[in-house]
């Protein structure tokens, strides 16, 4: 049943041979040297400062939603940087390989990347940015913020939360591994069909892409379940549905999308896997297969995925703009309604990703109107933010600047999106870089929201602010670079440049391609300021109050900064929609609890990271067709799950006096602090 594959295969190593290691490619050897150096420095530092035990006990085995969120964000930032370098490589190749007489270096006929390499780079750029950068960054932010914002102790399922993180991390590691062992997919982040079928992609590239997404999307689905349950079941007393902060609302809607959309991706990738491994014909052009079925199913996930990213971004704007306007959000009810309207319509628009398939005017007309309907609730949101600014008292901290820049990106993305929604226009710019510029406006809006959110909530988690001076430089260089690169790209779209070109056949595009490259250089400057912002902030560590901004409005800024690992010493009673603003008005924001009660906390566990790493070896075994490795990993995962299900650990209890002591000395309760070993509750104590 298993299909024949090209090239050698051995029972011990599967398809893996020495030639899979790209030791002759100077770019990859250089990358490996840098990666190995960083790994050595980090590992050396951990060992030198004797932090290995701390790292294992406090971070790798943690079930604390804030630490998990922080690790999600670290994974996301690393992958964001990787995918930015991919983008830089693409832009540089296109700036070099213009016209038939353009020179080539490093073995390429034009530019420095032959198509074999370039196609992997652009495929990795898209796959990583969407699934391994934006998604973990947003999941990280929601992980950190939502339980605090609704006054919960932790997520509903802390163990499953850790499992989600390590499955996502396993997927990210697989993508990175494809740099140094084998190849990545050349068929785009969408997995262009039937290019991903064995006759056209016989190597391991598509398998890397497929299994990395498959494993991480299981993590995303589990996280969606966790978030939905947390928001429905764990809100603090008094927080009725109309007192739920808008960021939590958007997180709820986005995870409903996640829970319903990601399984479709899982199925479509599994069917593709069946085609590649078992020789079935789900998506082949012949033998009864239907390749457009793949395209439909992919985008039935793919379009909701866009809103999966953008809705939390809208939620972040809805927190930050009121805070720095010193006013409540305008039109709270319509904002929530608009959020769910967007989430709902997101299910009915997928076909606009392939208006050109020749479906006919009726089908295209339906999906055109459905797509434009999204413009209504999105317009509502923009107007609501605008009226929130009206008669406010605006301060331009970096989170506020990011949020406001995001509004302008949304306006540009919105007008071009409405244009693309019209099939007659789409027939001229579909698959052109106009589309790329349009959706980069949207995903860079998400990036702007992520940076806004990270700066906004960073002091809450770590107890000190990120440096505003370097943050401002980071903001201005990043936004200017964005304006340069994507204005030029819109122009190229109207000049008729298509996407994914390794070689530029039309020299007339040179000026705009070079403009883009100049913008990319400015992005490099912004990375410098980002790193300097981190360095200066970590060096100075200026302590902040529980509300570092002074005008924050929601519950998470009621508890201390840095937030204690148990979140709130006493679960707060919620009195208003903007609880902190309400308490400030009534002079209650500084009130301290008089007595403490015991706090029940979940115990750490190493099972999630073990399952995560076994998923990594399972994926690696499947990619290289090393059946013993895949089989062993799968068996070990099943055994780990069974063992965990018989685990009788009931968590531990913090005694009131222990809480009181930590409230007096907050440094001992921060998520950085090492906690003493605590004995789990016995069955008798729990009752």
């Amino acid at each position: 049943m298993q299909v024949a594959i090209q090239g050698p295969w051995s029972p011990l190593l599967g398809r893996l041979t020495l030639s899979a290691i790209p030791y002759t490619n100077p770019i990859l050897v250089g990358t490996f040297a840098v990666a190995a150096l960083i790994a050595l420095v980090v590992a050396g530092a951990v060992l030198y400062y004797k932090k290995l035990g701390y790292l294992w006990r406090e971070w790798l085995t943690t079930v604390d939603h804030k630490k998990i969120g922080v690790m999600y964000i670290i994974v996301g930032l690393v992958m964001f940087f990787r995918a930015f370098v991919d983008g830089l490589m693409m832009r540089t190749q296109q700036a070099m390989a213009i016209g038939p007489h353009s020179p080539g270096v490093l073995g390429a006929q034009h530019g420095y990347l032959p198509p074999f390499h370039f196609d992997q780079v652009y495929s990795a750029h898209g796959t990583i940015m969407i699934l391994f950068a934006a998604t973990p960054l947003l999941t990280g932010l929601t992980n950190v913020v939502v339980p605090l914002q609704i006054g919960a102790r932790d997520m509903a399922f802390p163990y499953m939360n850790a499992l989600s993180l390590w499955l996502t991390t396993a997927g990210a590691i697989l993508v990175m591994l494809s740099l140094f062992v084998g190849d990545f997919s050349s068929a785009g982040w969408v997995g262009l069909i039937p290019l991903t079928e064995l006759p056209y992609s016989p190597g391991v590239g598509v398998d890397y892409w497929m299994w990395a997404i498959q494993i991480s999307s299981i993590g995303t689905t589990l996280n969606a379940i966790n978030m939905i349950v947390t928001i429905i079941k764990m809100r603090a007393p008094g927080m009725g549905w109309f007192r739920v902060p808008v960021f939590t609302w958007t997180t709820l809607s986005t995870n409903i999308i996640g829970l319903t959309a990601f399984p479709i991706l899982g199925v479509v990738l599994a069917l593709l896997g069946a085609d590649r491994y078992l020789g079935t014909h789900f998506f082949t052009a012949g033998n009864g297969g239907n390749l457009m079925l793949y395209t439909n199913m992919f985008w039935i996930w793919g379009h909701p995925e866009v809103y999966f990213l953008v809705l939390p971004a809208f939620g972040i704007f809805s927190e930050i703009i009121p805070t720095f306007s010193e006013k409540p959000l305008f039109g709270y009810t319509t904002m929530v309604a608009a959020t769910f309207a967007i989430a709902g319509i997101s299910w009915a628009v997928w076909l606009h990703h392939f208006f050109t398939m020749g479906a006919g005017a009726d089908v295209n007309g339906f999906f055109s109107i459905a797509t434009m309907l999204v413009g209504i609730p999105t317009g509502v949101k923009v107007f609501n933010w605008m009226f929130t600014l009206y008669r406010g008292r605006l301060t331009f901290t970096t989170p506020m600047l990011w949020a406001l820049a995001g509004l302008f990106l949304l306006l540009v993305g919105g007008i071009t999106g409405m244009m693309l929604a019209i099939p007659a226009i789409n027939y001229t710019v579909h698959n052109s870089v106009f589309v790329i510029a349009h959706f980069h406006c949207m995903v860079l809006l998400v990036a702007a929201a992520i940076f806004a959110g990270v700066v906004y909530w960073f002091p809450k988690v770590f107890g000190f602010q990120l440096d505003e001076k370097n943050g401002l430089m980071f903001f201005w260089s990043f936004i200017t670079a964005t304006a340069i690169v994507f204005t030029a790209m819109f122009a190229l779209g109207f000049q008729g440049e298509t996407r994914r070109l390794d070689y530029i056949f039309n020299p007339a595009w040179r000026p705009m391609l070079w403009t883009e490259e100049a913008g990319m250089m400015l992005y490099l400057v912004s990375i410098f300021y980002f790193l300097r912002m981190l360095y200066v902030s970590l060096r100075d560590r200026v302590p902040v109050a529980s509300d570092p901004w002074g005008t924050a409005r929601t519950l998470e800024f009621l508890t201390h900064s840095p937030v204690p690992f148990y979140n709130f010493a006493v679960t707060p009673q919620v009195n208003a929609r903007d609880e902190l603003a309400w308490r400030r008005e009534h002079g209650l924001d500084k009130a301290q609890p008089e007595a403490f009660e015991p706090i029940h906390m979940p115990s750490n566990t190493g099972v999630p990271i073990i399952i995560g790493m076994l998923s990594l070896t399972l994926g690696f075994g499947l990619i290289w067709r090393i059946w013993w490795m895949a089989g062993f990993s799968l068996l070990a995962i099943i055994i780990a799950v069974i063992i965990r299900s018989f685990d009788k650990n009931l968590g531990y209890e913090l005694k009131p006096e222990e809480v009181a002591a930590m409230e007096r000395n907050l440094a001992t309760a921060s998520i950085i602090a090492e906690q003493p070993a605590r004995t789990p509750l016995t069955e008798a104590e729990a009752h």
Partner: protein
Amino acid sequence: MRLKLSALKPLATLPALLALAGCDTGNYRLFHPLTAVAKVQWWATLFEAGIMSLIIVPTAILIAWFIWRYRKSANAKYDPAWSHSLVLEVLVWGVPLVIVAICSLISIRTTLDVEPYAPAVLAKNPADTAPLDIDVIATDWQWLFIYPQQHVAAIDELVVPENSVVHLRLTSTAVVNDFFIPQIAPMIDVMPGMRTEDTFDTPDPGSYTGFSADFSGAGFSWMQFHTHIVTPAGFGAWVAQAAASPVQLSYQEFTKLAQPTVNEGNKPSYFSNAASNLFDNVVTAAQAGVVYPVPDNVTKQVASLEDGGTAATTK
């Protein structure tokens, strides 16, 4: 409400005007539509950009003005409790609703006008003669144009007479491509085992570049074809030239030239006696599971100077 939205409306048409008048637009191919179909597409683009600007530009200006007006240091009127207004909330839903309704009408109208299989805009002005049928087959990574009525075929060169309507049937041997000639023909997917159609008119003679818009593997960047709209006499001469080609296009010949090939410079080649059922045979073969595999070593060689260079796959 004292926001004077109406005063800002004339500004809305500015961006389009600037784009048109402000700079040399010679390279902006989509700004210069040639065919009736492309003219509708460009008109739709302008109209949509204009009507969206009516709402986007004033919004952008208002946001910018509020940012300036209500900065803390300006000590402008501060209303910390204001967060609801029924009139405004009706407006924020109503205005986008009206805009979307107008855009929907435009969308339906223009979609029918340029429908690639049978554009309404061409039905209104029927050409004198019956449409010229051409079969298009995308291979990895060339374009084959078969003229069933003329019994000739050409690789990477599409020649059509002026003042006619051209009707294309398209399919692919291996993977999915997108057929596109900016200024002339709407983009349409080209899929193996399936048939799509595309239609355009040819008002004036001229030469244009067509290409694949959808990534189809390592040779994709070189997958252009020459498009020439010529006089009827010129078309006759071109057909005669192709008909004189010694290479006859049978299905067996086709399976040879459909192997993965990068045609650098898109040098045209011609075929006589093209089999009239070749297009249908290619579609049927793909449905029956015929593939034209691209092994990894071919992919690695395209435009690469490693491993023996480009010779293996280029003509």
